[in-house]
């Protein structure tokens, strides 16, 4: 496990830098142009030096490189470094079969997830919102009806009485419709919630999320890094 690994860095300070400068007099530059989707790649040169950037200086000579990116197969490339010149290494990485299988199984997993969780949740939410709308409208109508009933018992005006009765009859009809809608929606929402809980638990217990290792095959290789202040050798133990 990567988490259990220890990374030990040994910094070689300026005296090392000076020696590298001295040795770098016969160096050339290599530039990597790696075609992949994620833009990240690692290059293992001569099975010893791990490069994680698109260009680097190397002593002149012939090299064998292995290029890797997450979700792609390791691909080999040979190149030659000449003194004071730039060597361009272009590679198009091929998708790994394991990654394609992972992608397919992950897609299947997501479809099952949507069927078992997302869709029931959305349906429950839809019914709950519908029930809420019915409830709000029913309460609004109930308020209006009660107000009209109160006015009915207050007025001695026969014309006003007739108008209030018509309004109460119409609103009461709508109110009963909203009540029915509310009870049906709430019932369905509760049913959907129960279904959601059941399908979610079933999904959680029976379906496992597919995983794909993001670990580099060069993970255990030593890395030699150069920068303006010096150099570092990184290697892993464990």
């Amino acid at each position, binding site marked *: 496990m990567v988490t259990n690994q220890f990374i030990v860095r040994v910094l070689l300070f300026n005296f090392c830098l000076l020696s590298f400068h001295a040795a770098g007099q016969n160096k050339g530059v290599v530039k990597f142009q790696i075609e992949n989707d994620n833009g990240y790649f690692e290059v293992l040169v001569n099975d010893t030096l791990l490069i994680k950037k698109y260009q680097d200086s190397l002593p002149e000579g012939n090299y064998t490189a292995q290029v890797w990116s997450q979700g792609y197969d390791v691909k080999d490339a040979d190149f030659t470094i000449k003194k004071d010149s730039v060597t361009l290494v272009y590679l198009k990485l091929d998708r790994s079969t394991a990654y394609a299988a992972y992608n397919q199984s992950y897609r299947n997993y997501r479809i099952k997830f949507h069927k078992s969780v997302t869709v029931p949740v959305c349906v429950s939410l839809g019914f709950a919102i519908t029930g809420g709308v019915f*409830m709000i409208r*029913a*309460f609004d109508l*109930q308020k209006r*009806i*009660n107000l009209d*009933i109160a006015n*009915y*018992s*207050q*007025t*001695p*005006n*026969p*014309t006003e*009485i*007739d108008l*209030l*009765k018509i309004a*109460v*009859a119409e*609103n*009461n009809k709508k*109110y*009963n419709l909203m*009540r029915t809608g*509310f*009870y049906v929606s*709430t019932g369905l929402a*509760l049913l959907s919630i129960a279904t959601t809980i059941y399908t979610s638990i079933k999904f959680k217990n029976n379906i496992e999320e597919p995983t794909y290792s993001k670990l580099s095959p060069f993970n255990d290789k030593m890395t030699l890094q150069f920068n303006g202040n010096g150099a570092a050798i990184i290697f892993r133990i464990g």
Partner: protein
Amino acid sequence: MMKNLILVMSLIFVLTSCLKKIDKADNLNTNIFDKEYAGPCWFTIEDTYTYINGNGQTRVRTEAVLYESKMPGLKPSSVKINCQVNDQQSILLNVITNYNGDYPFYYDAIPESSNEYCFEAGIYLEAEDSIINKFTVCTQP
């Protein structure tokens, strides 16, 4: 799990009790000024007695009251009531509220041999020139 079930059931119970059927909406017939009034007789016979009026004639007076409690919340200062006893001539009374807020009115009938006086009263609607909610109560002096 049981706790959640109780919570859900309580919620349903509360919502159900809040959005219950409004029974009053289907029975809106308690106002005496409503043409479809379906309540009890809205006036009360207080007394029926025989007396001799100022012209020396014997009359049977029936006293009735429209109590404040039978009236709608907004009480008018007067109510027009149409009265009649047996088949005698009907009269239209403009009944004014008294200090109690009640509306007392009476009818002087010509004495009849049967000695039964059926007092009929209805609310007069001036705008429609019609009498609504007629009730008859028979008494003896």
